[in-house]
Each structure stands twice: as structure tokens, then as C-alpha cells.
């Protein structure tokens, strides 16, 4: 699923269709070109078709999970440069460390802040990287 905007390309991976719809709408509203995927396989296909600049990665996915997929992308020189931001409902102590250890560039917990998330993404795209390393 691809939108026809002309902004930076963003891939949203989430197995929950409602949440996928929410984030896709939000990103399109902020001018991004949005791809979506319900699982890791669909995500890999979308990346192969047109590599995005940013991936919003849910961690709990059926089959290969978001952390495994991130490790795979970061290990491949062709995809290692894509900014991966974990967006997950796993918000317990240690979950952020696991995400960063797997190679995620940032970590955002659900419920998402629809005002802050676009800013976070924009910061990464402008090369400023992680701003707040300790999201609550």
C-alpha cells in the first residue's frame, strides 16, 4: 500500500490494522510518502520495491518479530542506513534496551503522541538522531 505524496518515504510495520491506519494517516498528514506492512515478510518486500528513509517498527509481529527484522536490516549494507524507530506497546523496563541493542535508532512507546512522533521522525531525517533517550 503506497500513497502518492511526494515527501520522504516511510514504511510503517504493525500487525494491528487499526494502529496501522492511525499512524499512516498521521504520517500522510505530515507529508510523508507512506508504505505499510502487517508483518516482516511484507515489510521486506516493500523495502526491496522502494527502500524507505524511515521505518516505524512494531516489535510484536506474527512470525519474525520487529527486533529480528531490524537486526537483519542493520546487518545488510544496502538497508543499514534506513532509520528504524521502534514503536511498541512493550514499555517495560528493559524493552528499550532490547530495541536499541537490536539496532533501532529510536524507541517510542504506545500509546503514541501524535504531536511528538512527527517531530521525532523529522529530527532523525535531519541527522540529529535521538533526542530523548528515556521515553516514559
Amino acid at each position: 500500500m503506497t500513497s502518492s505524496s511526494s515527501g520522504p518515504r516511510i514504511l510503517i510495520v504493525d500487525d494491528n490494522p487499526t494502529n496501522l491506519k492511525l499512524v499512516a494517516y498521521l504520517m500522510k498528514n505530515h507529508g510523508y510518502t507512506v508504505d505499510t506492512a502487517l508483518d516482516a515478510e511484507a515489510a521486506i518486500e516493500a523495502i526491496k520495491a522502494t527502500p524507505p528513509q524511515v521505518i516505524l517498527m512494531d516489535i510484536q509481529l506474527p512470525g519474525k518479530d520487529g527486533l529480528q527484522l531490524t537486526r537483519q536490516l542493520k546487518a545488510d549494507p544496502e538497508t543499514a542506513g534506513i532509520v528504524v524507530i521502534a514503536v511498541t506497546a512493550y514499555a517495560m523496563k528493559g524493552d528499550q534496551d532490547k530495541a536499541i541493542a537490536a539496532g533501532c535508532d529510536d524507541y517510542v512507546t504506545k500509546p503514541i503522541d501524535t504531536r511528538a512522533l512527527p517531530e521525532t521522525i523529522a529530527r532523525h531525517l535531519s541527522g540529529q538522531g535521538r533526542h530523548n533517550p528515556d521515553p516514559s
Partner: protein
Amino acid sequence: MVQRETAANSPLQLLVAEDSEDDFEILLRELRKGGYVVTAQRVKSPAELDAALDASSERPWDLVISDWIMPGFGGLQVLETVSSRGLDLACIIVSGTPGEEPAVEALRAGALDFLSKDRPRRIVPAVQRALREAADRRTRVRVERELRFSEERYRTGFELAPEPLLAYDLDRRVILDANAKASELFQRSRAELRSLDLGAISPPRQPDGRTSADALEHYTGRARAGESPLYPWIFQAHDGDPIPTDTRIINLATSGRNIAQINIIDLRERLRAEEMRRRSAELEAQNRRIQEASRLKSEFLANMSHELRTPLNAIIGFTELLHDGQVDPGSPVHHEFLGDILTSGRHLLQLINDVLDLAKVEAGKLEFRPEPVELSKLVGEVAAILRTTAAQKQIRMTIDVDARVDTVTIDPGRLKQVAYNYLSNALKFTPIGGTVALRVKPEGPDRFRLEVEDSGIGIRPEDLGRLFVEFQQLEAGAAKRHQGTGLGLALTRRLVEAQGGSVGVRSTVGAGSTFHASLPCHAITIGRTPTAPVVAAPRDGAPTVLVVEDDVRDQAQFIAALESAGFVVELAATGQDAIARWKARRYAAATIDLLLPDMSGLDLLGALRGIESNAATPIIVVTVVPDPKVVAGFTVHDVLPKPVDHEGLIASLARAGVTALPPPLDPPQPSLAEHP
């Protein structure tokens, strides 16, 4: 006395001290006449005698015959020489000048006989006698030496044996001796032990229930009969400590007396080691259970957080978009997003309700309100809720309620929850065009079974165990994640178990699954569940009775009877639960049902009686067939029939010395209640 024995062809090695050739010849002739085959050497001087004796190692002499008086030599000298060499060699003196004085002198010096040369015919009987006596003496010496040796060996072995040994007179029933180890074992000196009977170093009874006296009678009898089995025996040390042993009584039957050696193997070290191993294994298992429980708890919390955040993400996210004016209020998307918020909100509510129910049922606080229920109507209502879902997936849903169990007494709301969970689960995992069947049928005389069969994806055998566990939603394949709280089946299990039922599932991957719940047809409100906390706080001073009973109706009867008589009641629905409780605190009494789901009533009795803290607590067995013989061998205060007779139960407890105070108004008198 002359004995007319013949010595036909007996060989005789003879050493003769004799100066007269003639006398020597006469001697030999007489002996040959007497039947001896004589080989003789004659010596005439001390030097020749020494030489002949020196050679005796090659030529052992049977006998020495010596003249009494010879020139430069004499019988006395011969006797002294033989004696000084320590030889066991008989000497006979012959003399040409007999007399009383030389005879006495010769006999004193060790001669066996003193003969006169005048009467040569007496020589043969004398030789015969000398040889016989010498043979007898040699035998005696050998036997004595052997005996001494064997006794020394025995004594050393007895004394130094690494295990405790007793010598015991089976006829007189008395300990004759004890070795050092035995003395140490019994904490009594050897002198103390001697003259005691075995009963005095044993407790009054053996673990099999026999008196020590009876058991001893048996084993000593077998020992007298020559049998020496190894059998378990409890001895008692001087300080009263029991000494578990393996013991063997071996009848040595010495010289016609029944003298036994008792071999004792002290088992305390081994038992201690076994006990340590058992305890350490128990602790390890307990530790593992605690760690597992802690892990599950953390996992539960993590899952809980994840499951709550997921719908909140949609609710808060969409609301922010709408609130911030990012969505055109009149657009279809606006309406769609409101719908998403609503759905997510409802999902969240369902999740919270499930969690609360789960917490309540876990704490034993969930209340059940049983009432007469028409099952076909109830399951019909549940099916109606899900009819649309089934229709959307073109699933054929059938309902079949056996008329024999159409009316039961149960909490309708809780049963609906169970039926709904099973049915919605089945619909969720059954592909488009499949079938789902709900059936209710009798199971035994007073239970019914509700089962839901689907033609869904099925469950792998290794996953079956995780099904009824909180948040253990199984991976349903990469294509689609099945929405749900992950709590439905866990809650179902707990709801059913709290009503005295059980759940289960059979499944074939690719062919479908059948979930079932088995429940009593007539539930009774008991206001508590079998999973109540292990230690219930007793009401001020009121004695607590442990009721071991798995049937909820009987449980209710016990509670009614005991509580109205002022007792506090604790329930255990399984043997294991009963044992855990019995270990954890002291009870005033216990009632035990012999038919329990997890172990035999007799095993349970054995286990309970082995727990020290409640060793003296009266136990009343309440069973359908009250036959006291069944519980013979156990300390049981009474055996009562089922159904429970309230007054009979209280009277039986009173006979066992257990009474309670009238409950509310009276001031508590704990000491009276605990020790009536």
C-alpha cells in the same frame, strides 16, 4: 590293666638306649611277636642319643625305650634329654633292678612306664598304651591349639568388627556380650548390656505396629530354627532415641546351645542422608516453582501492559487527530475514526473485565449464584450473540443439548461466560465455510459436559499445555493475528474449576479442536472456592477443623454442620492440598473423604499421620461405605457414613475431645477451646 590288643603289622620307629646286645634283641623279639614291624636304633651313650634325636626330623621316633642303668649313661639322663628338647615323645624305662624308688624317680622325670626286664612280656601292652596315649595327647593338643586359634580369631573379629555385634543366648534370652560398636550404639557399657534382653534396648513397639516383645518372639524363633533373615528393627539408645536398623540374628548353635550373633546395621546415617536429599530436592522444586511463579507474574504484567496499551494507542491517537483538527469533521474518515475509538474502547473494557474476573477468581472472591438453569435456552442466547460473526465467516454453527441435563443448578452468568469464550474462540480459529458445534451432554450421574468442536486450524500437541494459561496466545501463523485479550481460556478454566469442574481440550492440527468443561449439575453456594489461601485466620479462639473433601455438596454439608457448632472450617479438595495445610498449621481435628481425585484415602491417611505437628490431631473418616476395617492400622478416631449427619459429626468430634465455643456472642476463651 593289660589289654589284649594286637598291633598287627603296625610300623614302629623305636629308639632304644641299651648297653646289652642281648637285652636289645629280647626287646625286639617281644615287640615283633606282639605284631609290630619294628625299625629300631640302639644308642649306648649320651652322644649317640643326641645324634639320634637330632635326626628325628627325618626319622620321627614313635617311642623311646631306655635301660635304667648303663655304664656312663642312664634312664634318667635319657628322660631329661627328651624333656629338655621339648619333644613330645613317650619314654618307657626297663630295668634289671626294679624297685619302688627308681620307678617313682623315673615316672617323676616323665617316664610313661617303668618295667622290669624280668617280665619281657609286659613290654607289648606298655608300648601299646604309650602309643595310644601319645596319639590321644597329640590330638588333644592339636584340637586345643586350633580351638584357641579360632576363638582368638573370633574374638578379634567380634571386637574389631566395624558394625555393632551382640552375642545373644537364644534360650536364656539374654545378651552375653557386645562389641565396642554396640556399646557405643546403645550408649551402654558392655557390663550393662550383658544380662539385658533385646526388649530392654528396643522401644515398646516396632513401626509395623507389633509390640517389640511379639516381634522378638517371632525372630528369635526363626533364629532357633536356623533361619537368619535381615529385617528392619528399631532399637532404642539409652537416651531414648530410636535407632532404625537392619538386623540379623544368626544362630551359631555352639556345643548344643542356641547362642546367636546379632548383626546390626545402623541406618541413621543413611536415613539422614536420604532425608537431606529428599528435603533438598523438595526445596529445589519449591524454589523452581517460586521462580516460575515470579517469572509468570512478570510476564503477566508485561503482557498486561502491552495489551492495555494497544487499544489505548488507537483511542488516544485517533482522539488527538480529531481533537487537533487534523480530520475534516464532515468526512467519512472522521466517522470511521470515531468507530475505531469505540471498538478499541470496548475491547479495552472487555480486557479490564476479564482481568478483574481473573483476579477475583484467583483470590477466591468471585461469587457464584447458582439457580435452576435451562441449558438449551442459555446456550441459545450465547449462540445468538455470535450468530453474526458466524454468518460473516459462513460458519455453520450447531447447538445440541441432551434433554437429560437440560435443567441444572448453576450460576447462569458464569456459565454463559464459559460458553461464550469457547464459542467465540472456535469461530475465531475456524476458517470461512467451516463448522462449529456446541454440545451439552450428561457425564456420570451428576455432572454435565459442555463441549465446543470446531473445524479450525487445530493446536500442536506441544502447545496444548499453554492454552489455559494467561496471555499465552498461540502463534496463529504469519497471515493474521487473532484478536483477543489472551485471557478468555485462562478465565474459563478458573471459572469452571472454582465451581468444582474441570476443563480440557483435544485437537488435531489442521482438523480442528474440541474444548470442554465438565461441571456438577447441582452447584451449591459455598461462598468460597477450593483455592482459598492455605492458612485461614481462625476466628478468635475457635478451633479449626480441616475438611478434606472434593465434592462441593459434601463440602457445604461439612461447613454447615461445623460452623453452626462454632468451628472454623478449612477446606482441602485434594490430598496434596490437605497435606500442605496439615504441615502448615495445627488443627483441632480433620475429616477425611477416602475418595479424592489425586490420591487414595489410605495414602493420604498415611501421609497425614507421618506429619509431626498434627500427630495427635483426631481424624474422622467420612465415607460412603463406613467400614472401620478399611482404615485398620491407622490412628482414626471415628468412621462416619455419608451423607454427613450434622449431629453425628459434632458428637463424634466431642468423643474425640474436640468441642467448640458457641460462636458469636460469647467472649472467646481460646485456652478452653484449644484444650477442652
